[in-house]
C-alpha cells in the first residue's frame, strides 16, 4: 500500500478516485430515483464523439468530451420532454451515433486503438497534475449544484407533477440533472473509462438502498461506498496489475451483493415492526400490499 504512494501518478489517481467516489454516486442517487439509471451509459457513449473531436483537432479530449456530453445531455432531455413514445428510440439513436462517431473521428485523427482504449476503459498511468485540477474543479461544481438545488431536484425526481404544481422550473431542473450527470462522466472517464463510468453512479446507490431508510441516508451511504470501492479498487489494481476501472466496478458490485445479503434480515425486521404497530388497523389489506410491493422494488433496484 505504501509502495504505490511513491509514484506521483498513483498519488494523483488516488485523489481522483476519492473525487469520483464522492460525485458519481451523489448524482446517481437522483438518476436512480428518476428511473434514468442508464442515462449515464448513454452520455458516456456520446462523450466518445467529444474525445474523437478533441483528438482530431489536437485540442483537449477532456474539453471535447465535456462540451459534447453536456450538449448530448441537453439533447436527451429535449427529446424526452418532446415525445413520450419516440423518446426511447431517439435516445438509442443518439447513443449509437455517439459511439460510432467517436471511433470514426479517433481513427480519422490518426489515433491508435490504444488511445481509444484508454478512454473506453480508463488509464490512470497517463493522468497528469493538470488533469487532476480539471477533475477537482468539475467535482466541486457537481457537489455545489447538488448542495444548491438538492431540494428542488429531490422533489423533481420524486414526483414531476407535484414539482410542477409547486412552481418549480421542471424543464430547467431536468436539464440541470442531465448536464450534471454529463460532467460527472467526464470526471470519472480518465480513471474508470467511458464504458464503465455509469456503474459507479448506479451500483453504490443500489447497494446503499438495501440498507437505508431515507434519501439523504442513501446518498451519503452511496458516497461512502463509492469512495471505498474507488480507492480500494485502484489500490488493488496497482497491487495485482489489473485494469483499474473494472477492478473498481467489480468491488462496488461485491459491496452490492453483501448489502443485499445483509439487508434482507434488516428489512424483514423492519416490516415486522411495522405490522406490529398496525395491529389496531381493521383493514390492513392495502397496507400489506404496498409493503410487499415496496420490498420487491427495493430488491429489484
Amino acid at each position, binding site marked *: 500500500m505504501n509502495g504505490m504512494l511513491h509514484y506521483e501518478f498513483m498519488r494523483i489517481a488516488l485523489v481522483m478516485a476519492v473525487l469520483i467516489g464522492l460525485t458519481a454516486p451523489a448524482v446517481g*442517487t437522483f*438518476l*436512480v*430515483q*428518476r*428511473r*434514468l*439509471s442508464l442515462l449515464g451509459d448513454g452520455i458516456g457513449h456520446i462523450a466518445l464523439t467529444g474525445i474523437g473531436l478533441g483528438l482530431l483537432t489536437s485540442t483537449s479530449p477532456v474539453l471535447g468530451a465535456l462540451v459534447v456530453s453536456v450538449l448530448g445531455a441537453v439533447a436527451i432531455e429535449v427529446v424526452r420532454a418532446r415525445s413520450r413514445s419516440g423518446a426511447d428510440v431517439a435516445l438509442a439513436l443518439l447513443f449509437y451515433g455517439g459511439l460510432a462517431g467517436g471511433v470514426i473521428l479517433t481513427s480519422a485523427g490518426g489515433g491508435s486503438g490504444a488511445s481509444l482504449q484508454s478512454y473506453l476503459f480508463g488509464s490512470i498511468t497517463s493522468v497528469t497534475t493538470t488533469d487532476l485540477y480539471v477533475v477537482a474543479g468539475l467535482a466541486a461544481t457537481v457537489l455545489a449544484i447538488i*448542495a*444548491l*438545488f*438538492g*431540494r*428542488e431536484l*429531490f*422533489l423533481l*425526481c*420524486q*414526483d414531476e*407533477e*407535484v*414539482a*410542477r*404544481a*409547486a*412552481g*418549480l*422550473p421542471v424543464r430547467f431542473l431536468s436539464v440541470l440533472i442531465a448536464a450534471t450527470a454529463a460532467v460527472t462522466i467526464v470526471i470519472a472517464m480518465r480513471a474508470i473509462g467511458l464504458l464503465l463510468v455509469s456503474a459507479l453512479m448506479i451500483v453504490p*446507490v443500489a447497494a446503499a*438502498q438495501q440498507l*437505508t*431508510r*431515507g*434519501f*439523504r*441516508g*442513501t446518498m451519503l451511504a452511496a458516497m461512502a461506498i463509492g469512495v471505498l470501492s474507488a480507492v480500494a479498487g485502484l489500490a488493488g489494481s496497482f497491487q495485482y496489475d489489473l485494469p483499474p476501472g473494472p477492478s473498481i466496478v467489480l468491488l462496488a458490485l461485491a459491496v452490492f451483493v453483501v448489502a443485499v445479503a445483509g439487508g434482507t434480515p434488516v428489512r424483514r425486521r*423492519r*416490516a415486522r415492526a*411495522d405490522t406490529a404497530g*398496525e395491529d*389496531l*388497523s*381493521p*383493514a*390492513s*389489506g*392495502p*397496507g*400489506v*400490499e*404496498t*409493503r410487499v*410491493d*415496496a*420490498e420487491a*422494488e*427495493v430488491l*429489484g*433496484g
Partner: protein
Amino acid sequence: MKDAPPFAMTSGLVRRDGRDILTGVDLRVEAGEVLAVLGPNGAGKSTLVKALLGLVPLAGGRTEIYGAPPARFRGWRRIGYVPQRLPMGGGVPVTVREVVASGRVARTSRWRPAVLGDRAADRAAVDRALATVGLTDRARDSAHLLSGGQQQRVLIARALAGEPDVFVMDEPTAGVDARNQAALATALRGLAGKTVVLVAHELGPLEPLITRTIELERGRVVDGTAARGAVTG
C-alpha cells in the same frame, strides 16, 4: 384589491389520443369552498383537477388560477397538490419526514439556495404537518413501507407543510381503510377557511366537510349541488 377566484375554467376541453376526456367543463371554485368532484371511474375526475392546475394541457377553452393561466401563474406557494399516490420511482428509500419537508420547496424563492433558507420555520411547519396527520412517531421511517392510508396522510402532510391557501387532492380516500379515513377527515377539519378541491369515489367520513359537490360523467358535469347546510363564497 379583490382576489380572482382560486380556479375558473370555461369550456375546458381535454383530448388524449383523439378521445375527449373532458368536454366543455365550466367550473368556478370560490375561496373557502370545499368542493368534491364525484363520478364513476374514467369520468375524467383526475384529469379535471390536473387541468385546473395546468398539469394537463387544454385542447380548448381556458382555465385560470387566481386570474392567471397556469403557464403564467407565479403564486404556486398558495397551491398544495396532493397526488393520488406516492410514486415508487427507482426505489430509492425516502423517509416520511423527507417527503413532508419537500412540501416547503414552493415557499423558497427560486434562486435562493436551500442552505440559506429559513430552517427554523421549515422545521416547525413540517413538525406541525406531521402532528396534524398523526404521523409524528413515523417521521424517520421509510415512507414506502407504510400502509396505503398512511402514505396518503404523508402526501397530505407534504401539502400542509407548504401552508397553501388551496388544497387540490386527487382521490385522498381511495384504498384507505376506515380508521385512516377518519384520520383524514380530522386533518381536513383543521383546514377551516381554506379552499379544497377533492376527487372522490364516495365521501364517507368526509361528507360533513363538503360545501359543494359536482358530478362528472364521461367528461361532462352532469350534476352540481350545494351540500346540506353549505356555506358559499
